């Protein structure tokens, strides 16, 4: 498959002033020339194919937005190469802009005072969308979500959910090859999140649009992404299928059991009996994390049943959320 985005050894550095604390520090800063170099993106390479949905993940301040700004042509990389649809985004910003769509979190790019349909009409002119394509796109939108009530409402009167929805529709309007979605579901309620995920999924499927999605909501990732890229402190930690990630950590499962009596004490006892597992207890459950490459849950359960009267049990697969948390905290070994 021909890659639509190619990133090779990209580095981005910023120069920031070292600020000092307190009143004295502020006065000193007035004259200070004490700068430090911060490396926001550190040697990142990846290739993304047409039609992929890639989850671009990382803790706050990891360098996600910086990477996206470089791919959209707003920032120039300090070193390295970026090609988006054959363009160097920074050098051909307007040409690149024609091929991409961007939704940046809670920052609406629509005309605040105008009804959505008027924003659409202006966008139609700006992107020079032919009438037939424009009408077809609106019809397609109508088949996905009920846009009729949104069209005649000024953006400033919309709820956050409606606004996000409108922004996403506006980003796809000129049928771009790539759409960047930066935290599209932030602050939305459960049903709106579901609606937006369905919409993105459908647009990707029908229009074969590449979608780069950054989010902190693993629900988005589970619902949309097959591939995820994780960065932290500017460095790439992981780039592969999400199923691979789960396999990687999936050998862990958590067995939870309920026994009558002091659970904390049982937890200590069990730790002694099962040195290969990590055991903890809360008010209701004793949780045993089993590494299935060393032992099996059935085996552990068997062993425990001999000594204790187990009244109830649960088995938990590790969730994407936990895997990601583990990676943020410990990295990939």
């Amino acid at each position, binding site marked *: 498959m021909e890659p639509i985005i190619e990133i090779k050894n990209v580095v981005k550095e910023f120069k920031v002033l070292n600020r000092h604390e307190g009143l004295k520090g*502020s006065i000193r800063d007035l004259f200070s020339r004490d700068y430090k170099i911060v490396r926001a993106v550190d040697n990142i390479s990846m290739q993304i194919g047409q039609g992929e949905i890639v989850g671009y993940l990382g803790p706050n301040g990891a360098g996600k937005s910086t990477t996206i700004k470089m791919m959209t042509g707003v920032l120039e990389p300090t070193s390295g190469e970026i090609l988006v649809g054959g363009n160097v985004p920074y050098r051909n910003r307007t040409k690149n802009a024609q091929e991409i769509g961007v939704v940046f979190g809670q920052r609406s790019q629509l005309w605040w005072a105008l009804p959505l349909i008027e924003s659409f009409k202006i966008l139609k002119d700006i992107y020079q969308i032919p009438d037939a394509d424009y009408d077809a796109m609106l019809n397609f939108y109508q088949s996905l979500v009920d846009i009729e009530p949104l069209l005649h409402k000024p953006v400033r009167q919309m709820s956050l959910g409606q606004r996000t929805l409108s922004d996403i529709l506006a980003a796809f309007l000129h049928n771009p090859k790539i759409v960047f979605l930066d935290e599209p579901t932030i602050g939305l309620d459960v049903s709106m999140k579901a609606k937006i995920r369905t919409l993105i999924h459908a647009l990707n499927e029908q229009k074969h649009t590449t979608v780069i999605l950054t989010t902190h909501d693993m629900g988005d990732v589970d619902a949309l992404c097959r591939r995820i890229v994780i960065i932290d402190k500017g460095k790439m930690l992981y780039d592969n299928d999400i199923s691979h990630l789960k396999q990687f950590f999936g050998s862990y499962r958590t067995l939870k059991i309920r026994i009558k009596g002091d659970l904390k004490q049982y937890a200590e006892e069990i730790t002694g009996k099962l040195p290969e597992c990590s055991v903890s207890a809360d008010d209701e459950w004793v949780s045993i994390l089993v590494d299935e490459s060393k032992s099996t849950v059935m085996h552990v359960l068997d062993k425990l049943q001999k000594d204790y009267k187990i009244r109830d049990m649960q088995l938990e697969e590790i969730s994407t959320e936990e895997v990601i948390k583990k990676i943020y905290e410990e990295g990939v070994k």
Partner: protein
Amino acid sequence: MKLKKYVTLTRAGIIESLQFRMSFLIMVIGNLLYLTVTYFLWKAIYASVDTDVVNGMTFTDTLIYLVLATALNGFLEMYLVWDIGRSIQSGKIVLDLLKPMPYRRYLFWSYSGSFATQFLFTFLPTFIIVSVVTHGAIPLGINLLWFVLSVVLAIVINYSIDFIIGTVCLYTESIWGINIMKQVVILLLSGATIPLAFFPDGLRTVVSYLPFQAIYNAPLSLLLHADPDMQTVCTTLGLQAFWAFALTLISTAFWNRSLRQITVNGG
């Protein structure tokens, strides 16, 4: 310590205004340039009449008056109306109302930090430069004390007027229109752009009964008289105190009333 929480706000304000170091530099340089330009303009104006004294003011008097008025304007104009208006529109006002002190007081002390920086970095240097350039034309005596007292009262009066206008923003979204009206009325009627001495008699009498002249004209005329008689000082300061008191009451009452109305009706 009750005072402490207010002083903390002052300190935060100073730190915040120092963060923008370039703007700060520009502000200082800008003021100096502006002073020079004012100098040339009035020199030309005075050069085109035969007498040295116009309306009881010499060129030096007028220059000092206008330069210091500009410097005072630098720290009296604090864009309070914009701040109130914006936080009402964005809904941020709710957070400010939750602070453990009355909103009016909270804002006043938040601004006190920039009063302090502005006073130190723009007014004081201006004052010194003018003093030196005019070879000590500003009398340095008891009048300085009256001046400082008068400026403090002017700050209170100006703040109250701003706060009243800011309260109007609860009723309308047109911050720009309201603010510009306030600004031009104050600048003209307070004698900030042209000394009140130049006004025609009828207009001057009307203006002297309005609170605006207490902001610029009052402190500056106290400053420029080396040894004013006690009666003038008392009248000027007394009138200022009256306005400060009255406007504080009015602004507080107007705010509380408006706020109640808004919270009852839902904002």
